[in-house]
């Protein structure tokens, strides 16, 4: 690659060594065409890439870290230009205070991190299979709504039964809402980027409608909001036992634990199971995967359904945990933030959790920043977008900090035709 050639770090070259057991076992399947492709493609051939590789920790951490620093730096320039240089310290000071100092900020950070971790895992698992799930928002809405309906419907159930039931409803709803674009992709070639975005809009309108129906709408309420979730279906709060004054305001709930469990599940699924191997194979080379006897159709639907289920779980976290009901826009844009997170966390479950915590901190802190300085909350969206730009193009980071970094985001997605 002409642009990257001279700067390429030594650590990246011996990718061929990453050919591990799994790839060797499947060596018999490599026909000449695949070999040619592997030679041609400098970014690493099919089987090389499918094989689990040793993670270069320095490179995996350095780029995201520098990207965050660079984005906050440019954010500071934006503040300096729009509000004057004096405001930078006030704003970022408030940001840090609102994110970390004390139990309340800590709880808020985890509360905001919960939906974005789950939705981020949803996008990440799509990336692993070469599918770009921008539909997290719609899947969250449908999942969260299903959870609410179960949550207010069955009176007198034990929490041990009611909570799992409501959560399962969310998972099922999200899986269906994600699975349909997957099915369309597999059967008709309709690109998931367009269909999932359209499904977001359809979900938003559907929620608007459903919130007005008498079955869902809270009695005697003018605003279109749903009935309250019964206490037996609420996700219990994690920190309300703390012996401090405002313990009642610590909102972090069981959803955060569920997010961590989900991250573990995604790691296990992708790294240790045959299904996960199929996901990754289809993502890297659908033709190769088909040649190896995998059903690309079934895998595509399965990937999107799992991705939708994760986003649906994120929706349940919001409705059963944080809010206790459904209202228009309850997903709060987490489905879109998730894209940034998956890139920041390099589509690895651990990376997504760490990125989600950072995101939660930014979100929690931005509230305080909004209140205590002249800088508006939307600045964080700009910072967020800048982070993705730098993650996507490490060459920019390299140019700013004059360090060696790994390669950029390789082809994660497939075009219209593939």
């Amino acid at each position: 690659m002409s642009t990257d050639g001279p700067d390429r770090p030594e650590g990246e070259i011996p990718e061929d060594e990453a050919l591990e057991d799994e790839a060797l076992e499947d060596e018999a399947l490599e026909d000449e065409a695949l070999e040619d492709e592997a030679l041609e493609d400098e970014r690493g051939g099919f089987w090389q890439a499918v094989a689990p590789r040793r993670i270069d920790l320095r490179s995996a951490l350095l780029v995201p870290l520098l990207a965050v620093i660079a984005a906050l730096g440019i954010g500071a320039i934006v503040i300096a230009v729009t509000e004057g240089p004096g405001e930078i310290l006030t704003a970022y000071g408030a940001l840090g205070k609102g994110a970390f100092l004390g139990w309340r900020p800590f709880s808020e950070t985890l509360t905001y991190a919960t939906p974005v971790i789950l939705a981020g895992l949803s996008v990440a698992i799509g990336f692993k299979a070469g599918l770009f799930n921008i539909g997290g928002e719609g899947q969250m809405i449908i999942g969260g709504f299903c959870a609410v309906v179960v949550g207010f419907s069955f009176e007198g159930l034990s929490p041990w039964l009611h909570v799992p039931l409501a959560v399962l409803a969310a998972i099922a709803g999200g899986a269906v809402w994600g699975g349909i674009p997957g099915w369309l992709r597999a059967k008709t070639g309709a690109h998931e980027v367009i269909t999932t975005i359209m499904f977001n809009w359809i979900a938003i309108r559907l929620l608007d409608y459903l919130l007005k129906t008498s079955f869902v709408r809270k009695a005697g309420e003018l605003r279109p909001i749903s009935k309250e979730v019964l206490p037996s279906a609420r996700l219990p709060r994690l920190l309300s036992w703390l012996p401090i004054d405002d313990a009642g305001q610590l909102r972090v709930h069981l959803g955060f634990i569920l997010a961590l469990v989900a991250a573990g599940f995604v790691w296990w699924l992708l790294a240790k199971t045959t299904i996960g191997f199929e996901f990754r194979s289809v993502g890297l080379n659908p033709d190769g995967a088909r040649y190896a006897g995998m059903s690309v159709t079934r895998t595509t639907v399965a990937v999107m359904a799992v991705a939708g289920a994760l986003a649906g779980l994120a929706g349940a976290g919001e409705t059963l945990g944080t809010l206790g009901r459904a209202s228009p826009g309850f997903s709060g844009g987490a489905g879109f933030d998730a894209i940034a997170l998956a890139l920041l966390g390099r589509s690895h479950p651990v990376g997504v959790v760490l990125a989600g915590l950072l995101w939660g901190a930014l979100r929690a802190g931005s509230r305080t920043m909004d209140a205590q300085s002249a800088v508006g909350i939307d600045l964080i969206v700009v910072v967020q977008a800048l982070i993705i730009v730098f993650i996507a193009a490490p060459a920019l980071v390299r140019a700013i900090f004059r360090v060696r970094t790994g390669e950029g985001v390789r082809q994660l997605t497939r075009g219209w035709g593939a």
Partner: protein
Amino acid sequence: MISPEREALRTPAETRRSRILGVFYLLMAWLVAQVFALGTSGDAKFRLGSPDNPLDWTVSAQGLAWVVTAILGALAAIHFMRGLGKWTNGVLGVALGVFVLAFLGWAAAGVPDGFSLVGMLQASVIKATPIAFGALSGVMCERVAVINIGIEGMLITGAFVGAVVATVVNQAAGILAATLAGGVLALGLAVLCIKYQVDQIVAGVVINIFALGFTAYLGSQYLVKNTANLNQPGRLSAIKIPLLGDIPVVGTVLFNHTVFVYALFLLVAAMTYGLFRTRWGLRSRAVGEHPRAADTLGVNVLRSRYVNVVLGGMIAGFGGAWFTIGNGFPFNENMTGGRGFIGLATMIFGRWHPVGALGAALVFGFADSLQVKLSILDTGIPSEFLLMAPYIAAVVVVAGVVGKARPPAADGQPYVKE
């Protein structure tokens, strides 16, 4: 009956598709008979003239519905027996048209004021404008094999910059500034995709998040407080073309619009000529189909991509100004409402051809304006479902009810010079 030789010319896939369409027509015919014909009585009045030149067409709604049922039934029979070959898509368009006519007859039956068909068609053209600009921007980029998911971001940037500059300077300057802003954003996309070879879809999404976040930040920081000084673009007045504008029906629908609509018509003509009749067009298409071959023959692939992507961005920026200057609305966060993505669906529907894109955009514009006009008629259909119509139409379109279109062969692939 069809002769065996001709039957043999049809592939099994064509036969199957023909059967599916037959079932589809039969369902439509059943729906028209059951709901629109049996469920109505009275006359529907369609207004075809302008207020000062009235021209009404009054028809029995039930009779209209029976005629439409007969047409659809006949089409279903033809599809079961032999199919329509190359006329299939055109006939499908006409069939959908008469279906909608029966629907409108049902909705307007018994309404004393009647239904302004001309008003609705005119609104369709207006609503189609930003979608068509988005689609043309996509055609421009994808003909040189760069996927532009960032159209939505370019539209919103054009809307923002246009509104501010039009308020501060004047409307012409606003349109110019919006065009340039779209170009600058597209340059960013081009650098990410062409120079740094970032995954094109990821890069486009980055552009979107960045543009939506940045305009929202600046909007909440400045425009909300200073609406009168910064966010009052004023409405561009419609210009009636002499002579052409006086033709009944057609004149009102096509030749009484703002400069945005006329610019759209001119751009479609210019792009069609440019892409298929000039040296620039031939080179662009070569770069999109087989960049290596084009390079061998001395075409500068990278420069060609830069030029077209920036031009595409300028088209989208210009189209973005429609949202504010073209309508007289102040800038509002997220006011593009996914039109950029619908533009992408339109581009696919229009088979990467400017004229096709315009035709497809008119279909979406029709769906968009139908919802506005139907909410006036008070049909009892919830407005949320009507608002879903364009998005559902987009899903149906990309899922290929209208047949599979082929994108430029190298679409989405970065080019590395050897």
